[in-house]
């Protein structure tokens, strides 16, 4: 937060102070100019002078929109010095140092080389693995990669070596990426929605080229490639699965465009809060998107003609099973989530209409109950306290009963969860 520094220099006039506060209320003062830049005025963007303050401001906005920090900045490390771990079936990758440090960072790279890395996955000295989502960044315009380059070159150089990936054979053979790129590096990702409007097209660019949504939300094939025939239908690469965010998938669990925009801007909406790997996405990236860009992203995800959100179906389920689940709910859940599933403001989200409870796939519901969710501070003043995991408190049968109660009562989903499903996710916890 830069306000105190502004305040110190604002003594000369109340007007300046007021302007600063207004800007702070806007949710990120210095992004305001960049937001205007980034709102789709291509002609202006091309006119931005290389190395100018405007280009750097645009680069700052785009770096957030592309969520570079997710992998290139650790919670305790210097900005863009790398080190965030990314687990995959092939081994562990670590975000690289992209500060302008000449030895360890990208200080010796030209803007051309930076573009080649984002566009082709090839750096001056090696082939990148697609853990770096050049498969998505490939569609970025040269003007935008130049702006990101200009912004990164303004950062403080940090002399931290990039940690080498920890991969099993044969994936540790980097040159293999040459052969991977031929079939799998596409100029265009497949769209899950239909649309033609300018908003939809801007959203397509924001979601695919910058936000790289598909990298988590599209399932992957045996070689780690995006399965573009199933664009955005959801994937479970991490412990928390990335849900289906196709127009049908979003409508099925009750999302509307305004709620989705609220979710991206604040991390929390009536359908639930961002958790798992989506929390840092909101924290580092989507909260900074301009209003127009948020509208564009949701227009792209839901299509020019969005499907209406589905009402919660009434479920007939075995009364004994539901009663057992209800008793468990009132014993260990209702204190925070409410007897009627309404949640408590600033404490816990509602269960009624929660998109995780409504998801036909119970994966994330079960994982949340087993592992819990860390306390989260959302943009602004919103926060949720930590949810304890119940792996040690409730057994498989009890967690199945609880899942079934939640699904049938507030999720419109069948009470079909078995103790074996709980057991499988309990055992797989160690792998993540």
């Amino acid at each position, binding site marked *: 937060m830069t306000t105190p520094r502004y305040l110190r220099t604002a003594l000369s006039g109340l007007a300046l102070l007021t302007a600063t506060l207004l800007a702070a209320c806007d949710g990120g003062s210095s992004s305001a100019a960049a937001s205007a830049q980034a709102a789709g005025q291509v002609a202006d963007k091309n006119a931005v002078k290389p190395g100018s303050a405007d280009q750097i401001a645009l680069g700052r906005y785009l770096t957030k929109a592309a969520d570079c920090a997710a992998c290139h900045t650790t919670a305790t490390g210097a900005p863009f010095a790398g080190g965030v771990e990314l687990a995959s079936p092939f081994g562990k990758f670590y975000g690289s140092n992209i500060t302008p440090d000449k030895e360890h960072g990208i200080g010796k790279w030209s803007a051309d080389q930076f573009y080649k890395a984002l566009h082709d996955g090839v750096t001056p000295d090696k082939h990148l693995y697609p853990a770096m989502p050049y498969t998505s960044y490939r569609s970025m315009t040269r003007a935008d990669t130049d702006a990101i380059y200009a912004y990164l070159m303004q950062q403080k150089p940090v002399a931290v070596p990039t940690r080498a990936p920890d991969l099993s054979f044969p994936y540790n053979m980097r040159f293999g990426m040459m052969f991977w790129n031929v079939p799998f590096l596409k100029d265009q990702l497949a769209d899950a929605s239909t649309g033609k409007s300018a908003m939809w097209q801007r959203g397509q660019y924001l979601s695919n080229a910058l936000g790289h949504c598909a990298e988590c939300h599209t399932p992957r094939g045996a070689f780690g490639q995006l399965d573009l025939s199933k664009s955005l239908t959801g994937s479970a690469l991490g412990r928390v699965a990335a849900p289906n965010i196709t127009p049908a998938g979003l409508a099925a669990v009750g999302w509307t465009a305004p709620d989705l925009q609220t979710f991206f801007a604040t991390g929390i909406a009536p359908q639930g809060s961002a958790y798992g790997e989506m929390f840092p996405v909101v924290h580092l990236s989507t909260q900074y998107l301009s209003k127009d860009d948020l509208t564009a992203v949701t227009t792209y995800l839901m299509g020019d003609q969005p499907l209406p959100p589905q009402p919660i179906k009434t479920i007939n389920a075995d009364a004994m099973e539901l009663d057992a689940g209800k008793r468990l709910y009132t014993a*260990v859940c209702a204190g925070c989530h409410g007897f009627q599933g309404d949640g408590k403001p600033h404490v816990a989200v509602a269960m009624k209409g929660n998109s995780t409870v409504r998801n036909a796939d119970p994966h994330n519901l079960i994982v949340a109950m087993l592992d819990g969710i860390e306390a989260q501070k959302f943009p602004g003043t919103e926060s949720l306290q930590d949810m304890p995991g119940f792996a040690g408190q409730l057994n498989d049968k009890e967690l199945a009963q609880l899942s079934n109660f939640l699904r049938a009562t507030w999720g419109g989903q069948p009470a079909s969860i078995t103790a074996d499903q709980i057991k499988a996710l309990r055992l797989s916890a160690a792998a993540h």
Partner: protein
Amino acid sequence: MSMTIHPITMHINGKPVGPVPVPEGIMMIDFLHEYLDLTGSRLGCGQGICRACVVILDQPDGTSEEVRSCITGAHFFEGKKVRTVEGHAQRNEQGEVVALSPIQQKFLEHYSFQCGYCTPGFVNAATVLVEKLKRQPVTKAQLDDTITEGLNDHICRCTGYVRYFEAVKEVVLSTPGLVKDAK
């Protein structure tokens, strides 16, 4: 919400309680306060953060753990053994306190608490910690971290943390068997 009544039975501070008919979904702290007149446990935040309301749950395997009574339903404790802050001191037949527990005594001697609102939670947390150390002693080098970990979640708005810490440390060091290399 329609009010459904479920009877509840448990052991509290070594004595059988119930069956008491209570509304489904009542929180444990309300059950203690309103039905049993055990008002020592404090309702602080009401959302599981401050830990003033913590009670001790005694497991069948002899271990003990803290449970937040403000966010845990009374029926969670059905058939279980619970200790509250009222259960630590020794009492005579008239119910008068004749001796405090070692933790309570040291909290007094160290002036650990000021307003005292968080104290029931700290007494229970420290008691659970001492009982854990009886089962699994630590080395002297690990002790500071172990105590910090044991008390860390508890909030004291008078900021008596250091005195709580020192009191617990004195109890642990003066009780045989809690630290592997005490001498």
